[in-house]
């Protein structure tokens, strides 16, 4: 059986691969959406922090022999902690100003981080070995699915749905959401809003670092790895609707699939298709697919 000249089986394979890439988009755009929702800041450093997560995992393995699983836990904490420092020392001074200053500051930080890493680790990157427990692949009949890729989908779904649940369905999440609407009132209820904001930024950064650790075994760990990705992820967030958690997750996976199909039918456009979708969405639904018009 064939669809548009492509065997159905091959098409399934491509859809699955799209979903895997979507998993990365979803995790990264989720972090951006969480940060934007609470801090009203577009975190341009997100790509650099994703890269730092991957480098952190590589560094743990090379210097201390700390393996993949511990990195999965430790790297987000370490990088998240750097995020907390950035929020406390820099971002917190900007909340009273226009949002654009946050964008410019994080853009500057991204340049610094990438420049420093290139200086110390060169441009061609570092290899990160696939954890041995993931060696091999599942033969799905229609394709050869590396075990690690299967794990990426599962892990990303757990992380995304977990985050969504915490923010939308728990008491902590309701404080968070209330604090975005009216920080003064929430503060009056005895909740330490600045600390909550700091931790949220740290959490969003941690998510980026987690995505970085998960990317390390399949992508080359190089200083530039996040630089181009970040713009795609911005587009995902814009399409999903800024600040919408569920929107970021669904759009992330959805666009991964759209991009995967483009790679089959018109590969030349696979880097631009997301931006085309973005323009179309903005034309017909300016607030994004899941966003509310303010």
């Amino acid at each position, binding site marked *: 059986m064939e669809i548009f000249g492509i065997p159905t089986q*091959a098409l399934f*394979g*491509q859809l699955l*691969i*799209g979903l*895997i*890439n979507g998993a990365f988009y979803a995790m990264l755009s989720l972090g951006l959406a969480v940060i934007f929702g609470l801090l009203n800041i577009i975190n341009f450093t997100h790509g650099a922090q994703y890269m730092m997560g991957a480098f952190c995992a590589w560094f743990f393995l090379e210097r201390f022999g700390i393996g993949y699983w511990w990195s999965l836990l430790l790297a987000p904490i370490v990088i998240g902690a750097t995020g907390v420092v950035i929020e406390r020392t820099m971002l917190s001074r900007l909340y009273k100003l226009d949002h654009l200053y946050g964008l410019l500051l994080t853009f500057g930080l991204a340049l610094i981080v990438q*420049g420093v890493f*290139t200086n110390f680790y*060169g*441009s*061609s*990157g*570092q*290899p990160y*070995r*696939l954890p041995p427990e993931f060696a091999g*692949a599942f033969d799905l009949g229609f*394709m*050869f699915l*590396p075990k*690690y*890729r299967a794990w990426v989908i599962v892990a990303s779904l757990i992380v995304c749905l977990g985050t969504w649940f915490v923010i939308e369905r728990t008491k902590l999440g309701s404080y968070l959401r209330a604090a975005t609407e009216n920080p003064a009132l929430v503060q009056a209820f005895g909740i330490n809003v600045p600390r909550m904001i700091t931790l949220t930024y740290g959490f969003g950064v941690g998510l980026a670092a987690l995505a970085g650790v998960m990317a390390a075994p*399949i*992508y*080359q760990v*190089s200083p*530039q*790895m996040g630089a*181009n*990705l970040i713009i795609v992820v911005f587009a995902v967030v814009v399409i999903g609707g800024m600040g919408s958690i569920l929107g970021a997750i669904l759009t992330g996976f959805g666009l991964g699939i759209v991009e*995967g199909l483009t*790679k*089959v039918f018109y*590969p*030349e*456009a*696979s*880097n*631009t298709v997301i931006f085309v979708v973005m323009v179309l969405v903005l034309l017909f639904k300016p607030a994004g697919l899941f966003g509310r018009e303010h």
Partner: protein
Amino acid sequence: MTRFKRNILGLAVAASLTMGVAQAQVSDNLIKIGVLTDMSSLYTDLAGAGSVAAAKMAIEDSGIEKRGFKVELISADHQNKPDVGSAIARQWYDTDKVDVIVDVPNSGVALAVNQITKDKNKVFLASGPASSDLTGKACSPNTVHWTYDTWMLANGTGGAIVKSGGDTWFFLTADYAFGHALERDTEAVVLKNGGKVLGKVRAPLNTQDFSSFLLQAQASKAKIVGLANAGGDTTNSIKQAAEFGIVKGGQNLAGLLVFLTDVNALGLPTAQGLIVTNTFYWDKDDQTRAFSKRFAPLDKGIHPTMVHAGVYASVLHYLKSVEALKSDDGLKVVAKMKEMPTDDPLFGKGTIRADGRKIHPAYLMEVKKPAESKGPWDYYKVRATIPADQAFRPLKDGDCPLVK
């Protein structure tokens, strides 16, 4: 401002010294070499600081300074941007008294420097760039293209692989001018040698995930997957090919532009079995090993790539020619370089053709299995040597206006 003062001073000194001294023809009594290279992005490791170190070693080894010539070395980062590179080149020639520009990895920048060098009658020793246009339709009497070019890569890798049985190909091409040229040249060689191209896919530059394209390559059942891309695209596609079991499944990867530093970045477990063409390998003989032993500590332990070797050898030959000629006039020096046979420890004996092409053998190499490697940087085994007269594009096919 100090620079401008220095220039005015330099002018005065030059004016007073142009007569009487032994090296009267060498402008302002100083041979000034500018290494224009990439120090901040894609090609930092394969050129970068290593190219500066190689040029320094060439100046030392030539011994020219002991014979009364003054040589000065400066360097700058072109950031892989043609406009940045051409601005630096112009300034070097106009105000900084640079006589020769070396290296320039990145064809876009190199073509711009090629033109400026010709306009200002200086010398350009192109060891870094790939574009075979430098000795083709853009060829210049002031340029020597030393190390490699796209025609040679396509011909070496494509031709040798087809002859050794890899006769069905699938191309994974970076979708821009360089990728297209590499794919076109390789395809022609594959077809000429009786091979077949079963399919191709054009991936946008800087694609992060190649798995979709690799699945298409896998489905094509071609024996060879040709990677007509460079830098991060190449390393990512090789890494993911290993993950998807392309090589284990019986297909072979042919990296059309892979440097030693790329293999180092990938690690042998991932890169093993990859076939590449290079014109220099550090572990070829005692002389290259001796060079590499001196080189590595100067560049963070990196062993010399063919680009580093090209910088060393071209600077050495340039200095010899200047000394023989007692002049650093651009046209005359390059003519002298072409007239004198080349001889250096890294590329051996060779010649420079009328179109500016340096001629030397090329080596088809395979990346070793981790078990075969005896230590760090022991990566390649030589599968075939392509003799110098076959390695590069025949003079008549280049459309170089200097030849007719």
